[in-house]
């Protein structure tokens, strides 16, 4: 199975090489190869899902798990290993990537005509980057994939994007690179601290070993809480730099609207659907998993930023007239929930946070795909110019409504399953943050339903055909109906939006061992932590932490 996982990760890269090296592929051949690759990857991922054992904490499908250390000696040093494996945190994100890639290929089916082989090659390279990132069990391997994703996405935005594509791609690249370099320092710091203070001076780059080793590090300063200069806080901040930009958390979100709007539809789907999860996945895996006391110390600040992100994103989304821009800002808001759930610092919030990552990927991916379908037909994304598509494109309208409702967290659909536990979890830690975050749900319903109202319902409004496209779109009776590939790309997402909403159990069951472990680690370190200076609970005005002993309540409530 370990080999199957490695094959699954590397298969798209192979497809990408074929697309680059094969001479003179035409568009349909290129997209067929790309589709074949993504479908095969999805099939392999499903096999992995089927053989994933529920209730197991250790990473599965890993190389050499019995020998103590995961992975093959393949990279630079014996310590940096080629180590893949999936656990509860990464499993669903891995599958989400495989699934959204199919949607991305489908949504590019007609839209991309220029240099199609190159386009699909970058798309597939991006898939390998993302799959590898989620599957990595080695910090350096993780980082390599993390950075590698920048290159294909840079070209996808820069070559096939909208009018401002150059600025968008440069900004996206540099912004994320700057942050992730600091994250690299944080990762190195973790390894060095573990090497220097672990009892046997073990040099390891393995994520599971580091997580275990750092939790029980015999170094008193490591377990300090509440001081800005304690090592966990400093490393937490270094790690946070890259992930906060990727998520993006509130003051670091400025690259996102530009990149989303300028990217081609497939780029937006992957960017919002998967790439933002890279940030929150990193936060969970590294910040929460390895420096939990940093999270405890900085909790008021981070929860504040998350709440500001939720409300600010929602308010800005309300003011948008461009659909793509609206969905982009809604991402800022919804990712705020994901972060808020993490910093609830209890298992309810963590579970919600992990499942919300998947939910957001599904709904936002679907929304971007729907907007893309509309844009392909009308060449506009202005809500004032398009309306009443229920009469013209009923299938699309149905998809649009369903994904918007899922995104707005209607009970019975997937968004609710994520956002509700997040708020419940947060409530036990800080009531004010939970209540303020809750307003984000209301505002979310407002802007999404507003968009649906304008675009889907009402009398049919279509833009006057511009002269550029006079040949194919002059007569609106000839608006192309929704094609098979668009349905095929969106239908699985719709099914999952409903499925997760109705039966979240199977999904949560696979997440829980891992999120529970993070929670256990968090609570045990919190219990044994030494408070550096007795009075320094960081004096931030907005949120007062609820009494810490209220922690037991949500755990009882959880199941």
């Amino acid at each position, binding site marked *: 199975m370990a080999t199957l996982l490695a094959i699954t990760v590397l298969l798209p890269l192979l497809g990408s090489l074929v697309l680059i090296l094969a001479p003179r592929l035409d568009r349909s051949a290129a997209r067929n190869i790309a589709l074949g690759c993504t479908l095969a990857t999805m099939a392999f991922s499903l096999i992995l899902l089927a053989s994933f054992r529920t209730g197991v904490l250790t990473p599965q499908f890993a190389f050499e798990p019995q020998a103590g250390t995961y992975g093959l000696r393949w990279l*630079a040093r014996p310590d940096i290993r080629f180590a893949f494996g999936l656990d509860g945190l990464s499993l669903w994100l891995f599958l989400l990537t495989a699934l959204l890639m199919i949607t991305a290929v489908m949504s590019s089916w007609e839209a991309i005509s220029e240099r199609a082989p190159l386009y699909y090659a970058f798309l597939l390279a991006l898939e390998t980057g993302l799959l590898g990132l989620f599957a990595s069990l080695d910090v350096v391997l993780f980082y390599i994939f993390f*950075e590698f994703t920048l290159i294909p996405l840079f070209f996808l935005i820069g070559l096939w994007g909208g009018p401002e594509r150059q600025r968008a791609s*440069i900004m996206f690249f540099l912004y994320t690179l700057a942050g992730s*370099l600091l994250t690299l320092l944080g990762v*190195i*710091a973790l390894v*060095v601290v573990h090497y220097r203070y672990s009892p046997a001076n073990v040099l390891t780059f393995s994520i599971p070993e580091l997580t275990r080793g750092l939790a029980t590090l015999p170094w008193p300063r490591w377990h300090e809480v509440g001081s800005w200069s304690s090592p966990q806080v400093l490393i937490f901040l270094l790690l946070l730099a890259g992930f906060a930009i990727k998520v993006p958390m509130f003051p670091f979100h400025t690259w996102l609207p530009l990149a989303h709007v300028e990217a081609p539809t497939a780029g937006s789907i992957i960017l919002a659907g998967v790439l933002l999860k890279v940030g929150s996945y990193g936060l969970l895996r590294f910040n929460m998993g390895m420096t939990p006391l940093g999270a405890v110390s900085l909790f008021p600040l981070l929860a504040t930023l998350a709440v500001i992100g939720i409300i600010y994103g929602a308010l800005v989304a309300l003011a948008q007239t461009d659909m793509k821009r609206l969905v982009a800002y809604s991402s800022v808001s919804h990712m705020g929930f994901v972060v808020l759930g993490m910093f609830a610092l209890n298992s309810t919030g963590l579970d919600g946070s992990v499942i919300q990552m998947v939910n957001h990927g599904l709904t936002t991916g679907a929304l971007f795909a729907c907007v893309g379908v509309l844009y392909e037909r009308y060449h506009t994304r202005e809500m004032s110019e398009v309306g009443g598509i229920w009469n013209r494109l009923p299938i699309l309208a149905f998809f649009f409504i369903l994904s918007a409702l899922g995104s707005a967290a209607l009970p019975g659909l997937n968004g609710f399953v994520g956002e509700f536990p997040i708020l419940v979890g947060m409530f036990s830690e800080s009531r004010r943050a939970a209540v303020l975050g809750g307003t984000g749900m209301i505002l979310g319903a407002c802007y999404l339903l507003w968009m649906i109202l304008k675009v889907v319902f009402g009398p049919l409004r279509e833009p006057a055909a511009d002269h550029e496209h006079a040949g194919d779109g002059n007569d609106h009776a000839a608006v192309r109906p929704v094609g098979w590939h668009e349905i095929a790309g969106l239908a699985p997402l719709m099914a999952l939006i409903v499925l997760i909403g109705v039966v979240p159990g199977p999904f949560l069951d696979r997440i829980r061992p891992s999120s529970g472990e993070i929670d256990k680690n968090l609570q045990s370190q919190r219990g044994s932590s030494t408070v550096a200076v007795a009075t320094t609970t960081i004096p931030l005005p907005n949120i007062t932490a609820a009494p810490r002993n209220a922690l037991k309540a949500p755990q009882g409530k959880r199941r």
Partner: protein
Amino acid sequence: MNPQIAYESVQQTLRILIPELIVLAAGVAMMTASPFFRWPRRTWCAIGAGALTAALLALLAVSGLQTDMYAAVALNDSLGFYGRLVVLLSGLILLALAHDEPADDTAGEFFGAFLMINAGAMLVMTANELVFLFVGLELVSMPTYMLLYLSRRTSTTQETATKYFYLSIFSSGLLLYGLAFLYGVAGVSNLKALATLSWHLPSIPHPQLGLVAVVFVLAGLCFRVAAVPFHFYAPDVYQGSPTVLAALLSWVPKGVGFVAMVRALTAVISVKGPDDPLVQKAVMISWVVAAATMILGNTLALLQNNLKRLLAYSAIAHAGYLMIGVTVAFANGPKSGYVYYGCESIFFYLVAYALMTLGAFGVIIGLRTAGRDVETVEDLAGLGFTQPLPALALAICLLSLSGIPPLAGFWGKFEIFASAFAASLGDNSGPFILLAVIGVLNAAVGAYYYLRIVVTMYLRPARQTVVPRGGWPVALAVGACASLSLILGLFPGPIVRASRAAALAAVDHSPPSRPQVIVRSGPSPSHSTKIPWVQN
């Protein structure tokens, strides 16, 4: 030392120096023969390539030979061996880039001087003696003046050559002054002996005299590696001289200068351990140099539009990253069982840097537009679709320079930052971590100007036709640089092991037959056992 041992030592030394002697002899022969034979430049170039290849074979043949480290002026340890290997291979690449450069009538002198530079660089890699080190460094410098004068006789080249000449002479003076002090502190000129003495005797080197030595040697070498405050010649000289010479100047003096720093300074000073005041001062000085070099190089590179000037500032910036390694190397004392060594990261970075910077210069050499050389960033517009392969090679080299995985430059930065994080002065690791943070912020700034070129190549429409030139040797050299940047990014293992071995060799100063009692808290042999992958 009795005559018998002295004779043996000289014999051994000459034997391990065979590769240098071959290259030097060929260089001298070419210079002498040049006035009498009117051969085309291709012939001279072929002779040069033949000499380098012969030296390569000779180097492989002498790879096992060792000399007594306290007697010999040259060492064939791992640093000497791998260093010379890198010099020879990069020499071949440079030769391929230069094959079309000189006019037929000066080709003999040109390639002769080129071979001498290589011989000098190889001498520095092996040097174990202050005077020998200086000779090696001068053997790099002097033919460089000649090369600068030999190329096109325009007023800018003359100005460039003069500028470089005077500054280089000045820096050699500084260096020599510092080396004299380094000799003065213990009265020995053998570097390994100096290291051992300063390890055993607390009064050596004398703190004040030692500091003078450190400052002046560092200053003299900073000129060669183009580190602040001795960097200012670089942009003018690079811009004014032919691109091939800019490529040569951006790599050879830099590689040589850093190896000389390791051989003469860090390996000698660092044995005092991190608590020594001299070590602390040395760390402080190189800390400031590193930070200033990185910041200045990257900031000014942002403003450049001329490709050669841009690469010159980028070369300065990379000298700054490498100075982080030097800073760390000063602090890597004998008792520090560190996971990453400063010199190890320097060596790895140098290899990666050689590939990526020579590749980048190579692409510029290999392109021509509208009857002139490619000069500005705008000249490259649309290159990604008019000349896909050169553009791809340049893109790989530039992304590698900016440290994007999975390319060789990423591992270089990784090693540098990892060594900085692993270092500490006593319990204080704050300065190193701060330096690493400054380093990554600079890397992020640096990514911008590299990315600008990539953007111009791929995202802008072509303005003018750009045609390749230089034939297969340039193409081969550029292809080798680009593909090795990628391959070493995916499989950095061999270079990591080699630089590890070279780093251990550089700090090793204990004779093999040393009695066990003296090895108290032993330097390299005992702490190398703590390093996990050495046994693996």
